[in-house]
């Protein structure tokens, strides 16, 4: 093999083979999205044609139908409010707790932290039964509070933020202490501004996870008007005739907010995932 030779010389098209493989993979990854888009702009008749047509006359009515013939509007609102509240809660509370566990000294700190560690190990899906009973006993079934409450804090968030605060150089905080700043001042004025990257990563991960959450909302909010989009769209497909063009239009609209968030903040998000990996 003339491998060393190949390395030294610069080919006209660098990494052609690599690109071909990656493009093939990208086609597999992306074609469902293209089919989703194409379906969303064709008529119902064209959507069930056998064999399927690659191209069909463009019909834009499906996007209007999403809003007029399904409860998309209210459900979109539910998704937005639920996602915002969960994200705000997690970023605020988990950042505060992460800082306290990483940087403050108080009795029982390590014991409490170890107990929370066990919460991280528990797959929350398996606790749904009891969580549902708690929401039920509070009279909150079919409400925004039911969607938000169990996920307003998370053990993952505390760990992620603790990880960030552990990396802060001790000198900075020590200097502030010697200057007489109290713990709250150190947290709000010194530590938090230095942890914005971590907070951003946590916020994006929480937002995407909340928006996409299916099982909990499915269990707790069965009223059409109280569901987020994840559940609402799924319930449409269960109906007798599946109108795929309208469903695909709805699916596309419902996916777009998080796709935009991801594309805009992909660097922070990927950093957050990598930081989470370090934790494991």
């Amino acid at each position, binding site marked *: 093999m003339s491998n060393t030779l190949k390395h030294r010389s610069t080919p006209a098209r660098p990494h052609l083979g690599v690109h071909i493989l990656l493009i093939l993979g990208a086609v597999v990854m992306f074609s469902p999205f293209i089919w*989703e888009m194409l379906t969303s702009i064709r008529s119902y008749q064209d959507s069930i044609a056998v064999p399927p047509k690659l191209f069909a006359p463009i019909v834009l009515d499906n996007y209007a139908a999403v809003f007029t013939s399904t409860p998309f509007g209210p459900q979109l609102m539910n998704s937005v409010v639920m996602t915002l509240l969960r994200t705000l809660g997690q970023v605020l509370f988990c950042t505060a707790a992460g800082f306290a566990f990483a940087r403050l000294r108080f009795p029982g700190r390590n014991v409490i932290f170890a107990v929370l560690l066990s919460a991280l190990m528990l797959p929350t899906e398996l606790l749904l039964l009891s*969580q549902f009973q708690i929401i039920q006993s509070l009279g909150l079934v079919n409400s925004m509070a039911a969607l938000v409450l169990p996920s307003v804090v998370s053990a993952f968030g505390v760990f992620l933020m603790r990880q960030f605060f552990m990396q802060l150089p001790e000198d900075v905080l020590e200097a502030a202490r010697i200057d007489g700043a109290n713990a709250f001042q150190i947290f709000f004025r010194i530590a938090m501004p230095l942890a914005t990257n971590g907070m951003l990563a946590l916020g994006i991960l929480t937002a995407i996870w909340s928006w996409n959450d299916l099982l909990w909302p499915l269990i707790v909010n069965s009223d059409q008007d109280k569901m987020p989009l994840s559940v609402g769209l799924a319930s449409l497909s269960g109906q007798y005739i599946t109108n795929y063009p309208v469903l695909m239009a709805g699916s596309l609209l419902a996916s777009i907010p998080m796709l935009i968030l991801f594309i805009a903040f992909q660097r922070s998000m990927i950093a957050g*995932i990598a930081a989470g990996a370090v934790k494991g």
Partner: protein
Amino acid sequence: MSLRQTTNEPMTGAASAAPVTARPPSWKRKYALHRGEPLAGFALIAPTVIGLGVFILWPAAQTLFFSFTKQGTFSGYTWIGIQNFVDIFGDPVFYGALINTAVLTGFTIAAVPIAIVCAVLLNTEGLRALTLYRVIYFLPVVTLPTAVGLVWKYLYNGDYGLLNSALAVVGIDGPSWLSDSRFVLVAVSMVAIWSTLGYNIVLLLAGLQSIPKSYYEAAELDGAGKIRTFFTITVPLLTPTTFFVMIISVIGALKTFDLVYLMVGADNPALGSARTILYLFYERGFTQFNGGYAAAIALVTLVIIGVVTLVQFRLQKKWVHYE
């Protein structure tokens, strides 16, 4: 606290900090610096501790308790000892779900090498359009699972689905994927792989970037080819990340619910061949209101996840290289 702060106000800057850092501070002095922290500490952790206590730790204890009871339809319970567990281990539906989940998990593990290859390709030095590729491969991870489930349900449709018409081009008469008990689990597994591939690639890419370049330079000097370098340097040095990806993938696969609910669903004749443990848990707990049985399933699932993870940690000594 604010009082202490104002009295200490004049002592600012490096001048006051210097003598303290010059010699190691005594315990007393150090403690004095942390005065007032217990109160602040408790205040800062309070919302999280209360939230996790009420919605994670208490439910964990309650689920354990539920698993030994028969739950009433609306309220009340009777203690029935280990009867739920006896029922589970005599229930062919449970075993079916267990096998389905195991097969799905197997597919997920089998797909890890695909993620490694993609990550290695993406890690090519000086590769153009890296960000674009990464975004495309990652899109399914951030896409609403409901949308993923619906679009694939449409693609898999036996009559007017795109997949079968593509297969027809090469002369294959495709089945009705999602309602044929022979194919439904494969079909769901493929989507599970498709929708997590990007996540694994991102983790593996981070792992690849932490392999020192000097190894590759040495390999090149020794005249090792690309394939050889991949198997003798990349794969072994990537094993810690691969191990982590396996742990995450297996736990994720063992908790599969969304895709089965969205693509297969309750009325499907092939549900028996696609029902996962978590789907069975949902069915028993929330559609058949058999809370005690569902709680017992939750507990058994927790034990399975724990044991599988433990076994993986035990096995890692055999194949994971730490430096």
